[in-house]
C-alpha cells in the first residue's frame, strides 16, 4: 500500500444495465493535493466519486481510499472523508446553524468543542450573517459555502467534491478555490469534479474523462505540453468562411471558433502545418493572420476527446 496515495483505483468500472458509466478507470491521487476530474456531463464523474465513497458498488475493479478497500470497509472510512454532493443536499427547512449543528452531532464532535467548531466554520466560510437563515432560501454561492462547511466540519483527510461550483457566480468560484487551496495546504486531499476548464487548470493533477473512460491524466502544464498537436491560431475578417476552408483540409483534427479567432488543431506528425493552412486560406482568397500557439487546456480537452476516426493520424 502506497502511503503517499490517498486514492488508488485499478480497473474501476460501473455498469448500469447495458450502459457502461465508468470504464476501467486507473487512478492515483497523491495526498494533500487537489485532483481534478474534468469531463462533460454524463462522462462518469459522479459515478466514480460515489464508488470511491462506497455509495455504489463497482461492477469490476478495485479501489483503496485512505488505505481502506472500498466498498468493503467503507463504514470505517465515513468519519475520515467529507463529501459534497452535486445537488444541494442539506436541509432546506433548517437554518444554517441547525444544519451545521446536526452534521457536527452526526460526526460525534464532542459537545465541548462543537460550538467553537461551528463558529469557526461560520467564520471561515463567510456564513456568520446567514447563521439564522433557512438553508433553502439562500443563494447558490451561500448554499455552496454551507455545503463545503458541512463537508469539512469534522476535518476529514479526504474531501470529495462533485461539481461544487456549477451553480455559482465567478466571484464565488474564486473564493471557493481559495478555500480549497487553504484546505490542501493544511494537508487535506481534495478530489473535485468539474466541467470548467479554468477550474481544471487550478488543480495540481487532473484526469480527463470521456464516456466513462480516462483519456488523459497528469499535471495541467504537462498535459498542455504533450497534446501531440500543433495549434494554429487564425485571425480572419471572415472567420466563418475561413473555418469552412480550413475544414476541407484532411490533416485538420479540429477547428474551433473563439470570437473572431479560430483555433486549428493539426497532429504534430504533419509537417509544415502552418504553411499548409496559409496556402488553403490564400487559395480561397481569405486574408488572415496565422500563428502557432501554445495549447490551452481546452485544446488538450478537444485533442484527447476526438473520436477515433478523427484521431487516426
Amino acid at each position: 500500500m502506497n502511503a503517499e496515495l490517498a486514492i488508488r483505483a485499478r480497473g474501476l468500472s460501473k455498469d448500469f444495465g447495458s450502459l457502461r458509466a465508468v470504464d476501467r478507470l486507473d487512478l492515483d491521487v497523491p495526498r494533500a493535493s487537489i485532483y481534478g476530474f474534468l469531463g462533460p456531463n454524463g462522462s462518469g464523474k459522479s459515478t466514480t466519486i460515489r464508488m470511491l465513497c462506497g455509495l455504489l458498488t463497482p461492477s469490476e475493479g478495485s479501489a483503496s481510499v485512505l488505505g481502506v478497500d472500498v466498498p468493503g470497509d467503507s463504514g470505517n472510512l465515513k468519519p475520515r472523508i467529507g463529501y459534497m454532493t452535486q445537488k444541494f443536499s442539506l436541509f432546506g427547512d433548517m437554518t444554517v446553524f441547525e444544519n451545521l449543528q446536526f452534521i457536527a452531532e452526526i460526526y460525534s464532535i464532542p459537545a465541548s468543542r462543537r460550538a467553537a467548531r461551528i463558529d469557526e466554520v461560520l467564520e471561515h466560510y463567510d456564513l456568520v450573517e446567514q447563521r439564522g437563515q433557512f438553508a433553502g432560501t439562500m443563494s447558490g454561492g451561500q448554499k455552496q459555502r454551507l455545503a463545503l462547511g458541512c463537508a469539512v466540519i469534522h476535518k476529514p483527510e479526504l474531501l470529495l467534491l462533485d461539481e461544487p461550483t456549477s451553480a455559482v457566480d465567478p466571484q464565488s468560484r474564486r473564493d471557493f478555490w481559495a478555500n480549497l487551496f487553504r484546505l490542501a495546504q493544511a494537508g487535506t486531499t481534495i478530489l473535485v469534479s468539474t466541467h470548467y476548464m479554468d477550474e481544471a487548470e487550478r488543480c495540481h493533477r487532473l484526469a480527463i474523462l470521456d464516456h466513462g473512460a480516462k483519456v488523459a491524466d497528469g499535471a495541467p502544464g504537462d498535459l498542455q505540453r504533450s497534446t501531440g498537436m500543433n495549434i494554429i491560431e487564425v485571425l480572419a475578417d471572415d472567420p466563418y468562411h475561413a473555418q469552412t476552408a480550413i475544414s476541407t483540409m484532411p490533416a485538420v483534427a479540429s477547428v474551433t471558433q473563439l470570437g473572431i479567432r479560430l483555433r486549428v488543431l493539426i497532429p504534430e506528425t504533419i509537417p509544415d502545418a502552418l504553411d499548409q493552412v496559409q496556402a488553403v486560406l490564400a487559395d480561397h482568397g481569405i486574408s488572415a493572420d496565422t500563428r502557432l500557439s501554445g495549447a490551452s487546456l481546452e485544446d488538450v480537452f478537444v485533442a484527447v476527446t476526438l473520436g477515433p476516426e478523427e484521431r487516426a493520424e
Partner: protein
Amino acid sequence: MKSLSRLMAVTRKEVRQMRRDRLTFAMIFGIPLMQIILFGYAINTDVRNLRTAVADEANTHLSHDFVAQLNATQVTDIRERVNTVAQLEDLLRSGEVSVGIAIPPDFDRRVADETRAAVHILVDGSDPTIAGIADALRNLPLGFDTAVQRQPTELIEVRAYYNPERRTPVNIIPGLIGVILMMTMMMFTAVAVVRERERGNLELLINTPVTSAELMVGKVLPYIFLGLVQLAVILTVGKLLFAVPVRGSIVDLYLAGCVYIAANLALGLFFSTAVKSQFQAIQLTFFMMLPSILLSGFVFPFDGMPEAARWIGEVLPITHFIRLTRGIMLREAGLGEMVGELVYLGAFAVVAMTAAALRFSKRLD
C-alpha cells in the same frame, strides 16, 4: 454512546422539521376531527327521520291517529301525502322518499281483523340499512283506541351489554382510533425516507457515520409522541361530542396505543425504504387502508367473515388494536386479560422495524 447521541441528533432534526411542517400539524389535528365528525354523525345505523310518504286511502279518525303516532316516533319523517299506492311507488322509485305507508280504504275493518295486515309499508330495499328498518317499524308499539289491541308477543329480548342505548359512536370510535392512527402514522413514515431521497438529503446522510438503525429509530421516536397526542385528541373529541366512555384504565389504553403506533410507524418506514417516490409511498398506504378498514372488524363483524378474510385480518395490526380498544374502553377489560393482542402488536413493530433497517442499505445501488 456515540450511537445514542447520533440517534438523538436524528430525532432532534426530525422534531425540528416536523414543527415547521404545517401539513403535519394539519394531519395531526385535522384528520381525527374530520373523521370523528364524519363517522360519528354521518354513519349512524340508528336510523331516524326517514323520508316518508303516506297514501291514506281510508281517511278515517283511526287512520289519522295511526299516522300521527307513527310520526311521533321520529323514525319516519312524513314529507308527502298522496292519494294512491301507485303514486307512492313513483316517489320510491325516484328516490324522493325511502318509506311509503299505504293505508287501504278498509283500514278500520282490517285493524279489527287479526288475520289481515292493516297497513302496507313499502321500503326502499336498495339501501340495506333502510331495509332493516322495516322490521323495526313492524314492531312499533302503536296503540289504538279500538276494541282489539294487538299485543306484540316477544319471545326473545335482546340486551345490548356495554352499549345499552346502542349508540353508534360508542361502537365506532374505539375502532376509529385504530383507523385514524394507522392512516396518519403510516403516512408520516411512509414518506419519511423517500422524501429525503427525493430531496437529495439521503445521499449526504448515508455518507456520514450514522447507521441505518440509528437513522430508522431516530426517525420513528418523535412520531410516537405525536401519535399519543393524536390519541388524546381523539379521546377528548369522542368524549365531548359523543360521550364515548373509557371504562377501563386510561394507562392501559395509552400503553396499547403506544405499541400500536410503533407498529404502524415501523410498517410505514418499511414501505418508505421499498418505494421510489413519495407518490408511490402514499399509494401503498392507501392500498393498506382498504383491508384494514374492511377486514379488521371495524365495519363488518370479524366472526362473520370467511376464513381467508379472517386470516388476513389477523395479520393486520389494526385488528388486534381494535380488540384492545373495545375491550379497554367499553368492556372495562384490563391489558392483562388481552395480553396476546399486545404481544402481537409489539412483535409486529419489532419485525417491521428490523426489516426497514435491513432494507435501508447505506448504498445507492
